[in-house]
């Protein structure tokens, strides 16, 4: 017992020394932002001359529509802006030649484009992307919610299906917070933070990068660097997808939705402890959200919310 407390004491002494050396959260964020912007402008500069591509639209009422867009600059969102405001507000993802494409990613070749919404006949892919984006949003809220004295490590969140009841964000908090259990008031303040991000309607900007750039982006974070290496090995093309929302940069293996304003009802429901792992005490933050096009009555919402408080196990 004495050795354990002694170890903790020593850890804390060294931790506080390391904290003095470790850059603050704001500095980390601005560094990641700077690297992301640099890479983004570099990729944009690869197309100095405007070359045209032909995009044929598919969808209800759009058969035969042919749009002439710019190569490497036009995104599926700009195609939607050529159509109507309804298409702009309701599109979530795009299907480019059968492949899921984030809405803000530039188009490279002439292709067939289909805009996906929540009200399609088969919205499985869209729902899954929505769930992933909500979990990314929850991660962003958790990173910015704590005071500067406490570290927050975002782990790779499990890709749970929509039918599991809640989206999860795995996180490891500062060791000082191991015994902290959030009250309803703290969950509500996290919800408020998320609602603010939703109100700002920030787009999820995608970027395909090489692992070296990703390692540079996450140079302050060992956990994220390990994740980068693992993801790069899983991907056949060897590139990674980074997304930027506001000034928060995150990794994702699959496409995310177009913008944060697509969620309307968002609530952080619970924070469960999973047990200790290699980085510390693993915690799973869970939340529930519904898009603007599919809002629920308060009775239905309360039912869903009660279910979202239960721990979701990765199947």
């Amino acid at each position, binding site marked *: 017992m004495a050795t354990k407390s002694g170890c903790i004491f020593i850890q804390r002494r060294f931790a506080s020394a390391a904290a003095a050396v470790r850059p603050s959260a704001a500095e980390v964020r601005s560094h990641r932002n700077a690297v992301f912007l640099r890479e983004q402008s570099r990729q944009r500069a690869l197309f100095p001359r405007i070359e045209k591509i032909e995009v044929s639209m598919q969808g209800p009422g759009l058969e035969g529509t042919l749009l002439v867009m710019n190569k490497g600059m036009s995104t599926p969102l700009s195609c939607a802006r050529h159509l109507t405001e309804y298409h702009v507000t309701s599109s979530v993802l795009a299907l480019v030649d059968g492949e899921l494409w984030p809405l803000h990613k530039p188009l490279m070749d002439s292709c067939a484009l289909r805009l996906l919404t929540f009200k399609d006949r088969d919205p499985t892919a869209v729902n899954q992307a929505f769930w992933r984006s909500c979990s990314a949003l929850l991660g962003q809220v958790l990173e910015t919610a704590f005071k500067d004295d406490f570290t927050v490590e975002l782990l790779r969140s499990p890709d749970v299906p929509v039918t599991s009841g809640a989206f999860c964000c795995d996180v490891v908090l500062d060791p000082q917070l191991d015994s902290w259990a959030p009250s309803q008031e703290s969950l509500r303040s996290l919800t408020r933070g998320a609602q603010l991000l939703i109100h700002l309607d920030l787009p999820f900007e995608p970027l395909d990068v090489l692992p070296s750039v990703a390692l540079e982006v996450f140079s302050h974070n060992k956990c994220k660097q390990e994740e980068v290496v693992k993801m790069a090995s899983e991907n056949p093309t060897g590139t990674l997808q980074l997304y930027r929302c506001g000034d928060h940069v995150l990794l994702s293996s699959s496409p995310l939705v177009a913008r944060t304003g697509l969620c309307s009802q968002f609530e952080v429901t619970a924070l469960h402890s999973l047990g200790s792992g290699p980085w510390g005490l693993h915690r799973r933050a869970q939340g529930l959200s519904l898009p603007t*096009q*599919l809002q629920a009555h*308060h009775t239905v919402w309360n*039912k869903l919310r009660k279910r979202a408080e239960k721990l979701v196990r990765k199947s």
Partner: protein
Amino acid sequence: MAGWTCRFLLQRGARLLSPRTESSLFIACRRTVKTTTWFEEHLTEDNQEYMRKIVGEDYRKLTAERLNPLKDEPWPRHEWTEGRGRPKFTSLLHAVVQDCHVLKYLTKDEYDGRTAALLVGGKNVSPFHRSESEMEMFRNAGVPPKQKVSTFKVSDNAIIKPGTPLYAAHFRPGQYVDVTAKTIGKGFQGVMKRWGFKGQPATHGQTKTHRRPGASGPGGDPARVWKGKKMPGKMGNIIRTAHGLKIWRVNTKYNVLYVNGSVPGHRNCLVKIRDTTLPLRSASILNPPFPTYFTEEEEDLAEDLYDESLFVHTEPSLALT
């Protein structure tokens, strides 16, 4: 409701027109759009059925008799003394008591500074057409949302814990009650139906004057019409109380009260029943269940309770000795 109707129309209207004119339509008809919806708009059919079923089951669970091994003890109960008010409750017409629960207790200071009050609600309704702020009170009491909520002034030793169900056996036969309800609305009525004026004769030279009020007041001295003059106007649909109605029979199984006389309101309307305030009849309330009838304690009550002077139709009418 008008807000999202507009949005519904905009969306429907947009699909009818060609894509060219859609954007101009949106710019021209920009209004603030409310995002409330009917509860089943975005649910699949089996989910809609599930929601309806589960709400019914929840209500049954909430209103079922429950054991109370919980920390919040039932509130202390006091002996009945003459002159104290009892809580009374809302029920359906023809005195079928349907799902009455005590919702809230307002202390003397919260209510009017003189007497305490209890909010009582009757008849369950669906939660899908009630807003969240209204649902809050029902959620705190742990009961399903009610159609009508009314206030009863009670004395301090007659307060009941919110969430307690109220039954017809709260009243006993031989007791006198006051029944309050909204009268049947007759619309705009003339002076003969509304105030009982005599009108004018049908014949003997009356020109176009058979149901009119006639003179409207004295003459030169006031030189005006008094305030409150009886004239044609909207009749009915106002709250009225019938005092001193006797209860002859109480059915405890189906929660029915059989009450003498006529009661304001149409068939199947909600009425509020109180112990009578008439001074000569209030003495008839002898040893009532105080503060209310609890099924756990008085389980040996017969299904039908009759007044002493009432002939029970199931008994033999003649006894030959």
